[in-house]
C-alpha cells in the first residue's frame, strides 16, 4: 500500500498534548458553526435549497458553463478552458509571460494546489506569494495546507514566531498572534504593491451575469486584484451556479458553516476587468467530468469547500491534516481523493468512524459517510485493504453467520479477558487496545441474558 492513514496519523497522536490541542481547536469551530446555524430559522430549508441548486446545475452543467462564458466575454472577461492541471498551468504561465510578469500574488485556491501551480511557475522564474496568512505560513514552512479553510491550524504560535524570525527577520521569540499578524501584514503589503499580477480562486461563478465571487476575511483577494492590472481566476467546472439570486442562499450558508461567522468580511463580485487591466478566467475539468458521469460520485461535486466536515470529524480532529494522502483532508478529501485514484488513497475511506456527523453539518448535504462506505466496498472488492483486515473481516463474517460458533467465540473472549486481560495488548488485536483501558468483561452475553429473561417470563406475556 502506497499510503496508510493510520501510519501517518501515528506521529500525530503520539504527541498527546498536541493531539488534544488540535482536537479542541477544531471542535471550537464546530461549536461556533452550530451557534451560527441556530440563528437562521430556515437553516434546514436553505441546506435543501443549496443542495437542489447544485444538483440542478450539475444536471445541465455544460449549458450553464456556456451561458457563463458567453456573458463573461460580453463583460470583457477572457475565458480559457483546461482539461487538466498541466493545461491549466500552461495557460496561466502563458498569460503571465505575455505581460512579462515575474512577481505574482495569490489568494487561497485549492484548485491551484490540485494543479501544483506554484512549483510550475517557480521553476519558470516567477515568484508566487500566497497571501492568505495561513497559506503564507505554510508556504514559508515549505508545507501544504493542513486544513482547507485554516491552512496553518496545526501550527502553534511559538512555531510561527520562530518561522517568521527565520524567514522574515522578525525579532526572536514572538508569539503574540496580533504582533505576528502585524508583521505578516507589513511583509505582504510590500508584496501586494510590487506584484504585477494577482491570482484568485472562485467561490461561485454566475451563469446569468457572467461574473464570479471570491470571499475572504483578510481582504487579500481584494488587495491582490485591485493593485496589479492582471487578474487570473482559476475555477473548477463545478463552481458555476445559475442565477445571481442563488448567491443569497449559498452565502447565508458558507461562512456560518466554515467559521461560524454570519458572512465573510469581503464578498467580492468581479464582473469586469480593472479599467486598463485584464481579467482572465480559467475553467478546469481535471477529472470532474468523469466524477459527474458516475451517479454515486456525482454529489461530491456539490461541495462548496467550507471545511465544516473537517471540523466535526472525530478522525480529522484527532489525526491532523497531514495524515491524509489527498491534498484535501477530512471527510470530503477522503471522498474526492479515492474518486480520483482509489489505489493511491485506499486507506482514506477507512479514516472515518462512519458516524455521519460530516453529512449532518454539510451545507449542501453531500452524503459523505455513504460515499465513504461505498468506497470501502470498492476498496474491498479490488483487494486494496490490508491482508490482516481482509482475513479478519472474512473470519468475522464466517463466525457471525454461525450463531453457535459466534457464541462460543464470545464466551472464550470473555473468559480470556477476565483471566488474562494483558493478552488483548499483544498480537494483531492490540491496535484497538493501545492507549485504552479495557472494561471488565461481563459474565454473560446479551444473548444469554435475553434467553434467560425470556425463559423466566410467564406465558402470555411478550
Amino acid at each position, binding site marked *: 500500500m502506497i499510503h496508510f492513514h493510520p501510519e501517518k496519523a501515528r506521529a500525530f497522536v503520539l504527541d498527546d498534548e498536541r493531539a488534544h490541542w488540535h482536537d479542541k481547536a477544531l471542535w471550537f469551530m464546530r461549536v461556533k458553526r452550530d451557534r451560527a446555524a441556530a440563528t437562521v430559522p430556515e437553516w434546514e430549508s436553505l441546506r435543501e435549497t443549496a443542495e437542489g*441548486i447544485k444538483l440542478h446545475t450539475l444536471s445541465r452543467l455544460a449549458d450553464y458553463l456556456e451561458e457563463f462564458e458567453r456573458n463573461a466575454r460580453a463583460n470583457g472577461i477572457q475565458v480559457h478552458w483546461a482539461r487538466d492541471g498541466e493545461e491549466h498551468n500552461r495557460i496561466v504561465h502563458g498569460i503571465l509571460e505575455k505581460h512579462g510578469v515575474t512577481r505574482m500574488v495569490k489568494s487561497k485556491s485549492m484548485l491551484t494546489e490540485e494543479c501544483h501551480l506554484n512549483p510550475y511557475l517557480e521553476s519558470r522564474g516567477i515568484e508566487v506569494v500566497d497571501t492568505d496568512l495561513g497559506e503564507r505560513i505554510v508556504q514559508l514552512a515549505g508545507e501544504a495546507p493542513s486544513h482547507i479553510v485554516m491552512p496553518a491550524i496545526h501550527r502553534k504560535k511559538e512555531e510561527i514566531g520562530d518561522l517568521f524570525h527565520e524567514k522574515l527577520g522578525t525579532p526572536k521569540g514572538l508569539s503574540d498572534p496580533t504582533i505576528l499578524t502585524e508583521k505578516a*501584514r507589513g511583509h505582504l503589503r510590500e508584496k501586494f504593491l510590487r506584484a504585477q499580477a494577482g491570482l484568485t480562486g472562485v467561490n461561485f461563478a454566475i451563469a446569468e451575469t457572467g461574473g464570479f465571487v471570491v470571499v475572504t476575511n483578510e481582504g487579500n483577494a481584494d488587495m491582490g486584484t485591485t493593485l496589479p492590472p492582471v487578474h487570473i481566476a482559476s475555477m473548477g467546472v463545478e463552481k458555476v451556479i445559475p442565477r445571481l439570486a442563488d448567491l*443569497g442562499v449559498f452565502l447565508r450558508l458558507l461562512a456560518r458553516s466554515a467559521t461560524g461567522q454570519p458572512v465573510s468580511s469581503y464578498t467580492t463580485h468581479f464582473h469586469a476587468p480593472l479599467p486598463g487591466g485584464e481579467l482572465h478566467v480559467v475553467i478546469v475539468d481535471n477529472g470532474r467530468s468523469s466524477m459527474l458521469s458516475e451517479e454515486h460520485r456525482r454529489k461530491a461535486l456539490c461541495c462548496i469547500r467550507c471545511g465544516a466536515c473537517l471540523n466535526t470529524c472525530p478522525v480529522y480532529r484527532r489525526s491532523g491534516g497531514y495524515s491524509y494522502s489527498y491534498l484535501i483532508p477530512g471527510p470530503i478529501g477522503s471522498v474526492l481523493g479515492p474518486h480520483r485514484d482509489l489505489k493511491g488513497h485506499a486507506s482514506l475511506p477507512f479514516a472515518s468512524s462512519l458516524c455521519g456527523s460530516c453529512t449532518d453539518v454539510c451545507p449542501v448535504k453531500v452524503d459523505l459517510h455513504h460515499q465513504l462506505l461505498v468506497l470501502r466496498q470498492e476498496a474491498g472488492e479490488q483487494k486494496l485493504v490490508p491482508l490482516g483486515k481482509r482475513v479478519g473481516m472474512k473470519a468475522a463474517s464466517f463466525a457471525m453467520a454461525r450463531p453457535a460458533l459466534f457464541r462460543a467465540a464470545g464466551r472464550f473472549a470473555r473468559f480470556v479477558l477476565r483471566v488474562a486481560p494483558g493478552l488483548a495488548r499483544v498480537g494483531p488485536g492490540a491496535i484497538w487496545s493501545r492507549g485504552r483501558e479495557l472494561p471488565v468483561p461481563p459474565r454473560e452475553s446479551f444473548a444469554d441474558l435475553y434467553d434467560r429473561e425470556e425463559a423466566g417470563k410467564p406465558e402470555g406475556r411478550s
Partner: protein
Amino acid sequence: MTARDAILSALRASGASPVPAPRHPVPVRQGDPVARFLESVTSVGGNPRRVPDAAALAAEVARLPAWSFPRRVSLVPGLPGGTVDLAAVADPHELADLDVAAIPGEVGVAENGAVWVTGASLGPHRAVFVIPEHLVLVVRAGDVVNDMQEAYGRITLPRPGYGLFISGPSKTADIEQSLVIGAHGARSCAVFVVG
C-alpha cells in the same frame, strides 16, 4: 478538438438526468432590520452608529479618531473633509498610504452587518475599498434589508462590473484561531446608518 469542446462534450456525455431548480425558502423575519443591522455590525468587529441626517453624519464622522489622519477620501455625497481626490490619482499604488476612506453603501444587511458597495465611478481605484487603514461606510436606514436573499433583490449586475459586501474590518484567525483585526485591509470599520 479544443479543450473547451472536449470538456463540454464530456460533461454532456455524463448522463445526469434533469433535475428541476428548487424554489428559494422565504426567510423568517426577525425584528426591526435597522436594530439588527447595528447589532450585527458590532458582532463582526465594526463600530455602528445611527444618525438622523447628513449634518449629524458630518459632525460624527469629523469626531472619529480615524478621520483625524491626514490622507482622507470621501466618496459620500455631501460629506466634507476629504483630502485626496481620486480623480487626480493616476495609479492605485499611490493610495498605499491612504489613511481613511468614507464610502456610500447601497444596501445594508441586517443578518450579518454587511454593506454593499460598488465601483461604479471609481475608474482604476477599486483598491479604495481595501487599501485604507480605516473605513467609514454610510447607509441610509431605508436601504437596510433583512438578509442576503433580500439584498440580492436590490443588487444589479453585471453593471457596474465590480461590487462587494464588506462586513466589518479585515480580520484573520489563522494563528491559533486568535481573532486579529486588520489583516490586510481596514483596521477599523465605522458604519453609519442615516435616517
